[in-house]
């Protein structure tokens, strides 16, 4: 972080055009902005479904698989991203199959399983780290993200994964929406809700593994939950909500990256703070707009999307 602020010694001026020129003057920053945009678009769409399905906890658990993934990769000498995808995929399978063993989704039991998977995954990560007997020098950037040193190759890889994830989601989008809003009716109509549930968790695993490369494993929520939750507060409509979620995500990412470029603190801090402020403003505006509490709004939203 110190290097960047030294580069941007002049700091932001009041002229937005010269600020923009400053921001895009260095290739590393252009890469970071591109990577951030790709990640924000994907996180906005996948996060919208995650919030709808109330699987934030599962999303968080999958994102924490970065830790065992990265340490296992370190131990056997693979790239951290590969280990990450493997572990978050495994965790998604376990949570999906174990939680879907019953006919209906049981949120209490699902969260207990998710918690156990998360704890075990992290314990594994810690074990790998001690087996490695070295120091995981960049554990802070693993957990809290970094936008320095993103290469062209990484940007392309991110774009590829995002395209695959969004393509798959576009295929299963309609039945998934049906299954998320009203599982019983969807099941009665012959929609394979269980397979869809597992499939969605796998997609979520892909998405968090990718998002975490910008925000770090602990902070993926800033891009996965906050834009989607804000969009669902603002509008009950599906298409508009998805677009809004993506737009908000992209704006939050840009604002966070620009702030981190000009001022001397980690990017994770700025992205989470901007996301939090946006959510709080939307929620307050909504509460003020309609006196009856948010509870009623949520019921209406569910009806509208069904």
């Amino acid at each position, binding site marked *: 972080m110190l290097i960047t602020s030294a580069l941007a010694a002049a700091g932001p001026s009041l002229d937005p055009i010269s600020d923009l020129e400053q921001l895009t003057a260095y290739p590393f920053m252009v890469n970071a902005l591109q990577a951030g945009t790709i990640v924000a678009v994907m996180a906005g769409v996948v996060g919208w479904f995650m919030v709808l399905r109330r699987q934030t*906890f599962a999303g968080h658990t999958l994102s924490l698989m970065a830790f065992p993934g990265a340490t296992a990769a370190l131990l056997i000498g693979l790239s951290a991203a590969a280990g990450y995808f493997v572990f978050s995929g495994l965790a998604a399978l376990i949570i999906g199959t174990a939680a879907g063993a019953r006919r209906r989704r049981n949120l*209490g039991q699902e969260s*207990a399983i998710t*918690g156990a998977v998360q704890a075990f995954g992290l*314990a594994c990560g810690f074990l790998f780290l001690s087996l490695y007997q070295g120091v995981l020098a960049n554990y802070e950037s693993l957990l809290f993200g970094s936008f320095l040193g993103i290469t062209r190759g990484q940007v392309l890889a991110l774009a590829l994964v995002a395209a695959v994830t969004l393509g798959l989601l576009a295929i299963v989008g309609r039945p998934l929406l049906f299954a998320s809003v009203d599982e019983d009716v969807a099941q009665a109509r012959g929609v394979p809700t269980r397979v869809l549930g597992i499939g969605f968790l796998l997609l979520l695993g892909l998405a968090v593994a990718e998002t975490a490369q910008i925000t770090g494993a602990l902070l993926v929520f800033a891009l996965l939950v906050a834009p989607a939750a804000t969009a669902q507060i603002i509008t009950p409509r599906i298409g508009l909500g998805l677009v809004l979620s993506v737009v908000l995500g992209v704006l939050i990412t840009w604002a966070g990256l620009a702030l981190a470029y000009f001022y001397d*603190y*980690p990017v994770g801090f700025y992205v989470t703070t901007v996301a939090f402020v946006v959510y709080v403003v939307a929620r307050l505006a909504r509460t003020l707009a309609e006196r009856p509490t948010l509870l009623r709004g949520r019921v209406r939203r569910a009806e509208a999307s069904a």
Partner: protein
Amino acid sequence: MFAHEFFRNAFLAGTFIALACGLVGYFVVLRAQVFAGDALSHVAFTGALAAAAAGIDTRIGLFAATIAVALVLGGVGERASADDVTIGIVFAWILGLGVFFLALFSMGSGGGNGLLGARALFGSIFGLSTADARLAAVIGVAIVAAILAIARPLLFASVDPGVAAVRGVPVRALGLTFLALLGATAGEATQAVGALLLLGLLAAPAGAAHRLTANPYLALGLSAALAVTAMWLGLAISYTVPSLPPSTAVIGVATAIYLLAFLLRASTRMQALPSARQDPAHRLAGN
């Protein structure tokens, strides 16, 4: 083993921390608030680093942060039980703040001090001094006493909040008290197993107890017993195999217990319904 001072300290603190985690964890799973527990444990990280950046005892930061955030989550959510989107957003931001404090602290101390961050994230039970261990034990006893004191009404309010409210049980106040206790437990356990791993101690023994018995008081006791077992076994294993960090050993044993309970339950269910296995139509009807 017990000849070593550090092991006696770890044993003393660990026993009471596990006891508190087991008891509180039972209600966490019953009320489907595992995610809240998860969030509070991460908040502990921010608390510890904020205190470090401000130059005061990290434990004050730990407890202040976890209890304050617990009350905020409970206050915002309906029926004092925080919904998952609110939790996700609040704790992402709190963690972001934690990173900020980490940067602040590293700069203040001349840079490159990741040790405190690592300790807050992963715990250091073998590094506790005798005074630390005694204090942890006292706080553990206080949490256990508090949870036992409200166990009966809390159970009622958790299982059927509507009926409990009609009968005059203060459901909302109980929910808030419980979240505050959960926050205190998170702060307490962070010292032993760290902010990243304490969820295992909170969720795994309790999840196993829920699977093994439906009797609430039996399950409550079982959950505490399993948590303490996990702690003792974990400490012993970590002592015998020095390359294994104590947090990993404890959480590993806790997860193994959960897995055993899961398999045990699955196999008894299979035996109980022998006809269901042969006849898919019957199974659908039976479920």
